[in-house]
C-alpha cells in the first residue's frame, strides 16, 4: 500500500479515470480531488457519465483505466481488499435499496454487527440514536415496505452512517421521490454537510447544489467540463453546454 499524497486533506484523489461499456466511452479521463469535509455536487444531463463516475468511486463500476486513491490507497489495485475500503464509503442510491426482508433496525445493524463486529446491544443503541436524528425512531421495527419513499431514503442514509464512513456518496438520492418528500431528504443531507461529512452528490436539485455545495462539477460527455464554487458556477457559467444545461434546469 502506498501513501503517495502529500496533502493530508485530500480524501479521494482521482487520476485519469476512464470507463468503457463495450464500445461506448462513458468516462474519458477524469481527474479531481475531494478534500476532507468537502461537499461536491455533480450535475449533468442524463447519459453524461455522472452516475457512472460516482459509482466508480467505490468500484461498483470497475474503471477501465486510471487510479482512485482513497485515504492514500489505490483502490483500483487488484491486490487491495476493496471490501474494507467500502466500509468507509457510505452509498445512498436512487432506489433506496433497503433490504426488504429485514426490519429497519436490522437493516441498520447488520453491517455494524457482521462487519465491524459490534455487539447487538451496541449496534442497536447506535441505530436508534441515528434513527432518532432523522425522526424515525418509532419505525425501527417496521419493514421497508411500510415506509414512504422519503422515510426509506432517510433510513438508507442512516444505514450508511451506521458504518461510520469517511465519505458519503449519493447517487441521485431524491430522483425517485414524490415532490413533497424531496425536502425531508435534502434536509437530512444538509445537516450532514453542516456536521462536516465529506459528501459527493449526484443530483438534479440545483437549490441544494447552490446552498450546500462547496464545489459544483458539471460532467459532460465523460469529462469534467466545468467546475467551480456554486456562486460562480450558477451565475457565470463558461462552457456553452453548461449554459444550455442551466438554462433548462433553472
Amino acid at each position: 500500500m502506498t501513501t503517495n499524497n502529500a496533502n493530508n486533506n485530500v480524501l479521494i484523489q482521482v487520476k485519469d479515470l476512464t470507463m468503457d461499456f463495450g464500445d461506448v466511452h462513458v468516462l474519458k479521463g477524469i481527474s479531481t480531488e475531494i478534500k476532507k469535509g468537502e461537499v461536491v455536487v455533480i450535475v449533468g444531463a442524463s447519459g453524461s457519465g455522472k452516475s457512472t463516475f460516482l459509482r466508480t468511486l467505490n468500484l461498483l463500476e470497475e474503471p477501465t483505466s486510471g487510479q482512485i486513491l482513497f485515504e492514500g490507497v489505490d483502490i483500483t489495485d487488484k491486490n487491495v481488499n476493496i471490501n474494507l475500503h467500502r466500509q468507509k464509503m457510505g452509498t445512498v442510491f436512487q432506489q433506496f435499496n433497503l433490504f426488504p426482508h429485514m426490519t429497519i433496525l436490522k437493516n441498520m445493524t447488520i453491517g455494524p454487527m457482521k462487519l465491524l463486529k459490534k455487539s447487538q446491544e451496541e449496534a442497536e443503541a447506535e441505530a436508534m440514536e441515528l434513527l432518532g436524528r432523522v425522526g424515525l425512531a418509532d419505525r425501527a421495527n417496521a419493514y421497508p415496505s411500510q415506509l414512504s419513499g422519503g422515510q426509506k431514503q432517510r433510513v438508507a442514509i442512516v444505514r450508511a452512517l451506521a458504518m461510520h464512513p469517511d465519505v458519503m456518496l449519493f447517487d441521485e438520492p431524491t430522483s425517485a421521490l414524490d415532490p413533497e418528500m424531496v425536502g425531508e431528504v435534502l434536509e437530512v443531507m444538509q445537516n450532514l454537510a453542516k456536521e462536516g461529512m465529506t459528501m459527493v452528490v449526484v443530483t438534479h436539485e440545483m437549490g441544494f447544489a447552490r446552498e450546500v455545495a462547496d464545489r459544483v462539477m458539471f460532467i459532460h460527455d465523460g469529462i469534467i467540463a466545468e467546475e467551480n464554487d456554486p456562486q460562480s458556477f450558477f451565475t457565470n457559467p463558461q462552457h456553452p453546454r453548461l449554459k444550455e444545461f442551466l438554462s433548462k434546469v433553472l
Partner: protein
Amino acid sequence: MSAWFEDLKEQFILNFIEGDRWKWLLDGLKMTLHIAFFAVILGIVIGVAVAVIRSSWDQNNHKMHGLSRAVMAVLNFISKVYLTVIRGTPVVVQLMIMYYVIFASSTNARMVATLAFGINSGAYVAEIFRSGIMSIDKGQFEAGRSLGFNYIQTMWYIIVPQALKNVLPALCNEFIALLKETSVAGYVTITDLTRAGDLIRGRTFSAFMPLIAVALIYLALVMALTWLVGKLERRLRTSDH
C-alpha cells in the same frame, strides 16, 4: 349393498390385518420418508451451491480476473455438465446406475438411493434457485457490497433469503415430485411404500386395497407437505404488507 360392504371388510382384513401386513406399509412409509427427507436436504445443498456458481458466473464473469476466474470457469462448466446429464436422463436409470454400477460393492441400498434422489433433485433445485437469485434487483446486491460485505456474505445475508421466499412455491413443487419419485426405489431392492403395497398384492392376489391404500398415503403426505410450506410462506411474507 350389505354384501358389497361385507366383501370390502373381508378384503380389508385379508390385506392389512392378517399376518400384520399393515406393518409392511408402515415400514415402507418409514423408508420412503427417510429417503425423501435426506434427499431433499442433499438436493437443497447441491442446488444452492450450483445456483450460486451459475448465477455469479453469468452476472460477473466479465469482472473476474486471474485464478478466481479460472476456478469459477471450471466450476461453472462442471455445473452445466451436471445439469445436462441429470436432467437429460430418467431418475430410475440414474438410480440403477448408482446402485448396480457406481456403488455395485455397496449393500446399503437406502444410502445409495438417498444419494441418487438427492443428486437428481439438486439439478432441479439449482435451476429453481437460480431463477430466484436472478429475480432479485441488482440494487440489493450493490447495497450489500457498498456496505462492505464480500460476495459470499452479500449472497448469504441479503440475496438468498429473498430468493428463497420468491421460489418457495416452485421448491414445494419439486419436493412433492421428489417424494413421489422415490416410488421407483423398488428397482434397487428397497422396500418403500410402493413396493410394500405391491408385495401385499402379490401375497393376497388382491390389487384394489393395497394400491388404493398406498395412493391415499402418498396423497396425505403431499397434502401435509403443502400445508407446511404454505405456513412457512405466510411466515416469510410478514415483511411485505
